[in-house]
């Protein structure tokens, strides 16, 4: 029983990471039809901004802020204006290809300009282990869990309880109508990119102490975010959290009880099942198609 709880707890901790990354991914998809295949690399990169800043002598807390700021500028503003806007008018597919190319570009940049080796990353809280119902969980994992939940709650409040948030939702559901109603659509879309940039930077700071900063981090994280978003529900922020948790727990349980060689297969099978049986995801709403 203790080991089951251990698996559950560790799964939730990992799932929280996936959830944090999936949230931003979902947000971009919802508001601007951007399927960002570089989301994993977006999470990998801010850690390197911070490490570089620390290398130049800046203390960690300031470097973290610089990292977030750089993330907003590069992964938010530049991403939107240089890549998404020019491509989007040509359709979704060129944008998808571009984000795939972008992920390669960012990965190689980190490798070439910093290092191909994994780098240790300072933790926000000293890592002690807490014992809980026979299972061990590290304080770092708890912090990740707490931040992930807080973020989603904050985002939910923003989207549903504030005027700005409701404008953003309107933009997502029907941009033409939103424009007619006087909502500054382009600015709304910009905000989602900026929010995503902040989310990935925060995710980066949280997970790099555990994962170690490495240029290949984006690969598994990106795919996990993708799966979490779809399973949970592509058009609901809450769905991303649920999807992330399911993914993390499922991965652990299947590795321990079923097969470690096929541990990667179970999330994929769930994905296929969800798409075939409930395409809008577990918490998603059914999307209307305009004819």
């Amino acid at each position: 029983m203790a080991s089951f709880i251990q698996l559950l707890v560790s799964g939730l901790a990992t799932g929280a990471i996936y959830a944090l990354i999936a949230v931003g991914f979902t947000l971009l998809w919802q508001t601007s039809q951007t399927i960002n295949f570089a989301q994993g690399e977006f999470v990998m990169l801010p850690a390197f901004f911070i490490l570089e800043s620390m290398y130049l002598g800046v203390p960690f807390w300031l470097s973290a802020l610089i990292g977030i700021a750089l993330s907003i500028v590069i992964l938010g503003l530049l991403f939107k204006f240089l890549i998404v806007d020019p491509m989007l008018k040509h359709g979704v597919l060129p944008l998808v290809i571009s984000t795939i190319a972008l992920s390669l570009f960012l990965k190689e940049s980190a490798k070439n300009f910093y290092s191909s080796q994994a780098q240790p990353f300072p933790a926000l809280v000293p890592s002690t282990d807490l014992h809980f119902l026979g299972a061990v969980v590290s304080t770092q994992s708890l912090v990740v869990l707490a931040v992930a939940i807080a973020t989603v709650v904050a985002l939910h409040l923003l989207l549903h309880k504030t005027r700005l948030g409701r404008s953003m939702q309107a933009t997502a559901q029907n941009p033409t109508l939103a424009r007619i109603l006087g909502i500054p659509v382009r600015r709304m879309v910009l905000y989602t990119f900026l929010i995503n940039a902040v989310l990935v930077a925060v995710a980066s700071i949280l997970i790099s102490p555990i994962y170690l900063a490495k240029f290949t981090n984006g690969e598994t994280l990106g795919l996990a975010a993708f799966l979490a978003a779809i399973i949970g529900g592509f058009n609901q922020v809450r769905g991303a959290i649920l999807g992330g948790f399911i993914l993390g727990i499922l991965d652990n349980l299947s590795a321990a009880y079923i097969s470690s060689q096929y541990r990667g297969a179970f999330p994929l099978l769930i994905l296929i099942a969800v798409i075939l049986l409930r395409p809008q995801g577990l918490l998603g709403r059914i999307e209307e198609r305009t004819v």
Partner: protein
Amino acid sequence: MLRSALFMSVIAAGLGLSSQSHAQSTVYMPAVLEESGAGAVSGTNFRDGMRMAIDEVNAKGGILSRKIDSPVFDTQSDAGISRAQVQKALDNNPYVVLGPVFSGSVLVDMQLTQQAEIPEIVGGEAAAVTQKGDPYVFRTSFGQQFSMPKIANYIRDGVKAKTVSVLWVNNDFGKGARDNFVKEMDARGIKVVADISTESGQSDFAADVVKIKAANADAIFVDTNEEESARFLIEAKKQGITAPLLGDTTLLGQKVIDLAGGAAEGVRGHVALTVDAPIPAVQEFAAKFKQRYNYVCDHNGIKGYTAIYFIKYVTEKMGKFDSKGFAQTAHGLTITPQQEPGILMEATWDQNGDIDRQSFLVEVIGGKQKIVQVLPKLGK
């Protein structure tokens, strides 16, 4: 028509129609290595060690008065691409070819270099590399068929374990290690009670540690890449694993020790090639490397470095650049650091191209590798 002519000439350039002419003052020794993809760390380490040696040799005039010309072709860690790159290298009449490190790529490339009768100095450790009867392949570090018996003996005699769990990374390197390891365990009557595969790049080892705890073996053998080793050790410590943790080279590297923090204390194992070896020549090499490249190299850096000096020694022994003669001269050859300082440690190459060297049994104490025992060459 202009459009198609332009099109064609541009394609021609891409296909390398222009052949490279080699000045008589250089010797062409291209390297085919993993500079990107899953093997980037190994390949870049090998490349950097190699380049350092090349610069040293060239500064002293080169090999037999010819400077070394060694462009690096990236395999992207893919066997198909490495085959293409080796073909490109062979098209330009090399003297010898260096690399790759990934055994899968090595096995594919060997077919071509053997046909062309060009020696290939590789970084691959899979047993199969030297079992194909290829007289032109030479290793730069132990094959798994040599390192595993050493660890197995230690587990039987030193740790005195009757049962063992094995955790390995699911690629040709880790699987090969696991297969050889299990074979050696079976041969010694030690039971493998848990056989756990993990993914390259895996970050969450909770499930694997849970399974290991449940299996409760006398010893645990871990064979995976650097970051994964560190993450595993942290998780093992967290969940309170007490059985001895054993590994081969990677698990005991300083890099893993640093990344794992205190979790690496007490880890033991076999180390074939390491910058932490208590040999002055190796220490000097490590310091030079760190100064030039600003990072600590892993055993692949030593492979690349010694490969160049290996080639230099054999060539000077022959007195000429003879690819076929290289193979004949190198088989059965022993090179000592007195004869060639760049070889760092005495090494012997056997008829299959396998290398025989001293190695070490090591334990991590106080955040550093401490040599517990020096294992002599098998051939002595």
